[in-house]
């Protein structure tokens, strides 16, 4: 028998961090939710405006709240499942403080507008490197602990942790490949459709392997613990695990249905998404059925209440996800609030409630005292649940309403709601209700924090908890030669390799076509790189997070071509590093905005959107009118873009200042034609207008030479 100590210090640190960041992330969400019906609560500063705070909200919830919750649950359960202390205390603390430093740097850089604009991967390259380093430290600690375990077989929760560690590393590194132009500015090495494919391969699997697999592992540990009975079917958990990790990795293209992505890749993504229902529901049922005969405990224990709702929300979200991935449903739901409702069922229900459940479970055990108030925890449960309902139901209503309004034609064949604003205004009551729901959810978190604090005050923290277990006879482990799952559970390295192969196959088959597409992208001769001024304007568009509300991808539907113009072609995005297709239309699509309005319209609209579009909920971008355009970065940025494949010539780079001057004068002339004469040529607004006026106009230009290949219409 060996005696050792579990490390509860780092578990507690992650638990506290999860609670605090949970509050920060949801408050940021509430602030931007309020801006959607009351734009003035951006306080008229760029740093607190929707476009910049939206990535802060998503990153805070995903990586800070769920990230810390995940580490907390893994560090607690892994030690107990392995009957061993974490491999290295130093690595545990490096993991903790490194992760917090990354979160703080995100909270500083995102409001400053330093962003790559790729959803859930917005952080700039130095932070990306830091994430990779901290993640590797976590992986070493995880595998080190598994290596020195005293329990021969790895329990199902550990398989999910292994899959998380390996896949997140792979996704993060591949999606974050970027060319630095300066310390806090880089360009994705991929362009247009390839960038979109890699981004959503990442984005979808970040949901899978950051928000789902670690939490499923935690479900498999904490649910049986709390119910004090084994998991319903261990056999089912084997099928659940392998089915889930193998299928998930293929489903990414469902984020790009009806876009310029090749049809076969869209269909592949759709089919695998639908198949995902099977393992997801297998896991959900396995969790719920674990409670068979123990439902009386759910009535008494708030921790189990949260867990049951979390697992149910997982079931709902994993049925809804595949439904949304069906092309005909997606045609209606995409770009609307339906997606927002879907992700919040997952975030508030699955991740949020499971994290709360975990914290209610851990604090009494870490502090060796009963929970301060079961009653207060029950209040939290009901307020949180009602808050969640008030959040998602209005968002479903809003999503379906917008989707239908955008597609409706009148008897004469014209769009019934030809002005996009008609749908925006119709949705505002839903946005108000959503903010009410979010507020209730936040009240619940505050109640939890009070309860946990009082519990901690009442008890005595055991930082190093003594435990005993017999040493593991490694020779005996190796002797087992049967190639069953039993054998696999005893050989972590082989297990990790098989897991890697399972996730790589899907990734490869999705990414190989990325190279193929490069050859098949129909070249459009008239599509040219952005001019230096337009490039700077595009960087400002990225800085302000315009992509959070405006797509640049017109799908081949009559309702969209009538509203926006010609549908978007693959060949139009070959110089877009990164792609800016977007995933949400709070405002209209902008791909064909170029030339649609005079320069002065854009000036007035950005200064005060309500002056040109009464009822608009877009914030005022007054700072663009006053801030001086930084042209000193032009050359380094053009060079960085050239390195990733944009064919800027030496003379174009050398003469960029002259080019900017000439084009700025043209914009100023355009403004003067609209009676705006007080703008100096060196303001940011000039670059933004230059970019907006360029958008989607290339294919309208007559090419100097005949096109090499004509753009082929999508089959959709």
């Amino acid at each position, binding site marked *: 028998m060996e005696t050792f100590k*579990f490390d509860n210090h780092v578990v507690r640190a992650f638990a506290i961090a999860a609670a605090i960041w949970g509050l920060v992330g949801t408050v940021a969400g509430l602030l931007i939710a309020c801006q959607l019906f009351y734009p003035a609560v951006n306080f008229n500063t760029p740093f607190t405006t929707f476009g910049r705070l939206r990535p802060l909200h998503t990153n805070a919830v995903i990586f800070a709240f769920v990230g810390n919750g995940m580490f907390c649950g893994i560090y607690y*359960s892994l030690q*107990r*499942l392995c*009957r061993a202390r974490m491999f290295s205390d130093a690595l545990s603390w490096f993991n903790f403080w490194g992760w917090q430093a990354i979160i703080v740097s995100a909270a500083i850089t995102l409001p400053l507008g330093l962003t790559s604009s790729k959803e859930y991967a917005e952080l700039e390259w130095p932070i990306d490197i830091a994430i990779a380093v901290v993640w590797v430290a976590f992986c070493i600690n995880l595998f080190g602990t598994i290596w020195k375990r005293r*329990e021969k*077989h790895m*329990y*199902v929760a550990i398989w999910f942790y292994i899959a998380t560690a390996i896949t997140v590393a792979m996704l993060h590194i591949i999606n974050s490949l970027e060319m630095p132009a300066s310390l806090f500015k880089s360009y994705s090495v991929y362009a247009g459709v390839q960038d979109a494919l890699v981004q959503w391969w990442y984005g979808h699997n970040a949901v899978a392997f950051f928000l789902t697999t670690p939490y499923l592992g935690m479900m*498999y*540990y904490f649910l*049986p*613990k*709390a119910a*004090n*009975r*084994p*998991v319903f079917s*261990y*056999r*089912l958990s*084997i*099928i659940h695990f*392998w*089915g889930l990790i*193998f299928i998930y990795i*293929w489903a990414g293209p469902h984020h790009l249905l009806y876009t310029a992505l090749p049809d*076969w890749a869209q269909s*592949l993504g759709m*089919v*695998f998404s639908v*198949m995902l229902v099977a393992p997801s529901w297998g896991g959900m049922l396995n969790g719920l059925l674990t409670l068979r005969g123990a439902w009386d405990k759910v009535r008494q224990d708030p921790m189990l209440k949260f867990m049951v709702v979390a697992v149910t929300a997982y079931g709902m979200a994993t049925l809804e996800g595949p439904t949304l991935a069906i092309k005909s449903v997606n045609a209606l739901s995409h770009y609307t609030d339906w997606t927002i409702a879907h992700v919040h069922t997952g975030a508030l229900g699955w991740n949020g409630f499971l994290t709360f459940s975990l914290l209610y479970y851990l604090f*009494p*055990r870490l502090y060796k*005292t*009963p*929970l*301060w*108030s*079961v*009653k207060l925890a029950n209040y939290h449960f009901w307020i949180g649940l009602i808050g969640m309902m008030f959040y998602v139901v209005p968002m479903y209503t809003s999503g379906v309403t917008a989707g239908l309004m955008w597609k409706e034609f009148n008897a004469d064949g014209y769009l019934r709601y030809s002005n996009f604003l008609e749908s925006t205004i119709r949705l505002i009551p839903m946005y108000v209700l959503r903010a009410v729901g979010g507020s209730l959810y936040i009240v619940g978190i505050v109640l939890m924090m009070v309860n946990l604090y009082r519990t901690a005050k*009442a008890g005595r923290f055991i930082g190093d*908890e*003594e435990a*005993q*277990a017999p040493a593991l006879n490694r020779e005996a482990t190796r002797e087992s030669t049967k190639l*069953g*799952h*039993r054998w696999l*559970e005893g050989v972590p390295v082989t297990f990790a390799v098989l897991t890697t192969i*399972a996730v790589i*196959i*899907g990734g490869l*088959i999705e990414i*190989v*076509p990325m*190279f*193929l597409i*490069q*050859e098949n992208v129909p070249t459009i001769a008239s599509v040219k790189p952005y001019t230096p001024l337009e490039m700077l304007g595009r960087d400002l568009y990225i800085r302000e997070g315009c992509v959070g509300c405006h797509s640049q991808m017109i799908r081949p539907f009559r309702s969209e071509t009538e509203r926006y113009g010609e549908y978007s072609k693959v060949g139009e995005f070959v110089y877009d590093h990164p792609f800016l297709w977007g995933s949400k239309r709070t405002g209209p699509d902008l791909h064909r905005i170029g030339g649609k309005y005079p320069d002065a319209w854009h000036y007035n609209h950005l200064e005060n959107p309500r002056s040109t579009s009464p009822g608009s909920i877009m914030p005022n971008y007054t700072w663009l009118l006053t801030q001086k355009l930084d042209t000193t970065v032009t050359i380094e940025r053009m060079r960085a873009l050239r390195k990733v494949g944009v064919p800027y010539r030496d003379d174009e780079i050398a003469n960029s200042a002259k080019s900017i001057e000439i084009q700025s004068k043209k914009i100023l002339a355009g403004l003067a034609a609209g009676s705006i004469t007080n703008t100096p040529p060196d303001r940011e607004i000039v670059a933004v207008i230059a970019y907006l006026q360029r958008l989607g106009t290339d294919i309208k230009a007559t090419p100097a030479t005949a096109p090499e290949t004509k753009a082929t219409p999508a089959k959709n």
Partner: protein
Amino acid sequence: MIQNILRHLGGVEQYGVVSLCLFGTLFVGVLIWALVQKQGHLDRMSRVPLDTDTVEPLQTPPNHE
């Protein structure tokens, strides 16, 4: 070189079918694998989280009400 090979790979339209076959094979494999597991081992494994903890689950009666 690898990039060059990949660029010239043909038959992209077969990828969907290939992936479905791959999945089918893997799924049937895992299914069989799971079914042939001995019940005794499965029972023992499912008890791992319950047996490894040194801390007994606490009753949580409210202590201030």
